[in-house]
């Protein structure tokens, strides 16, 4: 009769419903999946470096012991500092230290420049790759999609045939070999491009800042890698967009749109374009991953100091902490790119935003 307590109680059933409701939102699910992936890769990296035979930590310890004659304990402590873990501790503890280290941004220190945090080194090189690859893929995707749509509208015409041929050719030649060809032909044989001056990410003496000088200088140096990325990936976009546009043009709602007397421009943009561009987004994520991978090769040819360049350098010098850090950072970057493209896709296509069902 008389209410003895009036405090609100969140009952377990209600909490479960709320959680389920939140989980049903596509965005939340997608972000959780990304975090999980990064976590799994970080874990994989951890075990890769530690548990495989000939793991670099042991190698380092043994080298230190044999070269400098220090004890296992001392060598292990040194390794602890460098690899951001302590090899003396039991594995679960190491794992926990590793994870918390990452959360704090501590990826260990470089073996070859002791005292320099891996994170700092990686962040010095990463922006250049992000800049060149990002710009390259965006230009390639935008231009390629427009061309692909044009090819679909003018199917069978000379534009279609020529562009198909060119795109096949460009798609075949590996991007680093194209890079070499550019250097050989335009740089050496024809002497059109000042290859030596175009090396590196920016000219010596130019300070990184947000000035026009710096940006134009950065563009100057990035132009060759970007050209290579664009030329070797544009064919893929053209093909995807052409196929998708052809499919969309055959759909009933396009005939209905024409029947409704809509203007061609409106049909091309909101009816054909929007539907045809959908497959581009998943492809974007894949291509980004591929080009970032390829950066290890292309940046070598152009001596462009991006993350790929750093990666090769670290491999050659067996700088394992840096390698570990690069692997993690690159993964995070690729996962983030995947996330963004998936979220954009869901913005465009309302059919995806439904309840948690079967993921495609």
């Amino acid at each position, binding site marked *: 009769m008389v209410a003895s307590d009036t405090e609100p109680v969140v009952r377990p059933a209600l909490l479960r419903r709320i959680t389920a409701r939140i989980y049903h939102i596509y965005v939340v699910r997608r972000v959780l999946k990304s975090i999980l992936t990064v976590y799994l890769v970080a874990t994989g990296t951890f075990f890769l470096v530690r548990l495989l035979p000939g793991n670099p930590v042991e190698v380092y310890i043994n080298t230190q012991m044999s070269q400098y004659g220090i004890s296992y304990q001392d060598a292990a402590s040194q390794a602890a500092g460098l690899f951001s873990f302590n090899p003396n501790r039991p594995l679960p503890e190491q794992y926990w230290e590793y994870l918390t280290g990452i959360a704090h941004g501590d990826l260990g220190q470089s073996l070859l420049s002791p005292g320099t945090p891996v994170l700092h080194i990686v962040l010095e090189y990463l922006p250049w790759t992000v800049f060149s690859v990002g710009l390259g893929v965006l230009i390639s995707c935008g231009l390629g999609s427009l061309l692909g749509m044009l090819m679909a509208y003018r199917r069978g015409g000379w534009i279609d045939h020529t562009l198909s041929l060119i795109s096949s050719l460009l798609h075949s030649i590996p991007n680093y070999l194209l890079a070499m060809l550019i250097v050989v032909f335009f740089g050496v044989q024809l002497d059109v491009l000042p290859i030596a001056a175009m090396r590196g990410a920016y000219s010596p003496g130019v300070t990184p800042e947000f000035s026009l000088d710096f940006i134009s200088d950065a563009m100057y140096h990035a132009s060759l890698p970007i050209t290579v990325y664009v030329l070797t990936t544009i064919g893929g976009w053209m093909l995807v967009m052409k196929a998708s546009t052809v499919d969309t043009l055959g*759909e*009933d*709602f396009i*005939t*209905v*749109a*024409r*029947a*409704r*007397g*809509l*203007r061609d421009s*409106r049909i091309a943009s*909101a*009816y054909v374009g*929007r*539907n045809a561009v959908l497959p581009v987004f998943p492809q974007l994520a894949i291509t980004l991953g591929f080009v970032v991978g390829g950066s290890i090769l292309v940046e070598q040819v152009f001596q462009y100091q991006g993350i790929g360049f750093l990666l090769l350098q670290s491999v050659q010098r067996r700088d394992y902490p840096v390698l570990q850090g690069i692997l993690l950072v690159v993964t995070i970057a690729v996962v983030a790119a995947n996330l963004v493209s998936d979220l954009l896709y869901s913005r*465009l*296509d*309302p*059919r995806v935003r439904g309840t948690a069902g079967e993921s495609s």
Partner: protein
Amino acid sequence: MEPILSVRDLVVEYRTAAGPVRAVRGVSFDLYPHESLALIGESGCGKTTLGLALLRLLPKLGSVPSGEVLYRRRGGEVVDLLKLDREELRRFRWSEAAMVFQGSMNSLNPLLRVRDQMRDTVRAHRRMPADELGRLVKDVLRKVQLDPERVLPAYPHELSGGMKQRVLIAMSLLLDPQILVLDEPTTALDIRTQRAIVDVLHELRAQLGFAMIFVSHDLPLAAELADRVATMYAGRIIELGGVRDLFYRPRHPYTVGLLGAVPPVVGDLPELTSIPGGPPSLLALPPGCPFQPRCGYAEADCEAAEPDLAAVAAGHTAACHHRDRVSYARKPAAGGSAPDERVASGG
């Protein structure tokens, strides 16, 4: 009364891997204001192609080598639709004649909300302030018994087949067209939804007075909705007349065959018949009348020359050399007395 649409000797050709095929081989008919005309036939007879050709919506491989489609505008001026240029055609479409496609099809852009697609439709033809447009759209949705608040913000995949069909009908009325062409309006819908759609169409015709052409294989639908019926076979109209004339006094053996195959809902179940054989391939039509291989009335002259539509009564024509002999009476099922009138598939 002057017809609102006059089709004269319309021919529609498709380019196929096996050569050009004529899906419509010389069709002529008139459509009068406010009337409802049904185009009935089996799959492949050319009825859908005919419907598309009227609005020049044929796919790329289709073309109209000859014929006229004369349309009378509200002011009285007559134009040949086949001669309109692109922009004139665009403006003609939907504002003068609209087409309602099958609701089960992917007829709406899956990425746009219904209200955006409605808005697109209106904006393509008229300048209208936003509030007036809103009122028009809501009004037209209510006319098809849909709740605007529920339907307008929705995406197509959130609507049922019946709701989509009604949205399409509503969309077709936005610009108050004189003619509505419907392609299989009730196919692939369940019985109750079919009923709802037919009721809606009755109402709309009474309210708004547009002329209607609908294409179907569904005879009972024609009996309900049509004022006049045309049956099509192998790309031509082979019988054309008022709905009662056609259903009670058919004069083409094919029409008789179609009627004989449909069971009546009331009364005793008669013997159901089917027409032996199948429709001919348009690439290899039989000589003379295309129906003669399957026809119980066929004689030598049927193979010699293809019959044209000729009068059998006022406002009723049939394309058969022996139309005066054709009659239709249903035989009761085994156990009843058999009348001695001939039925097409018998002999």
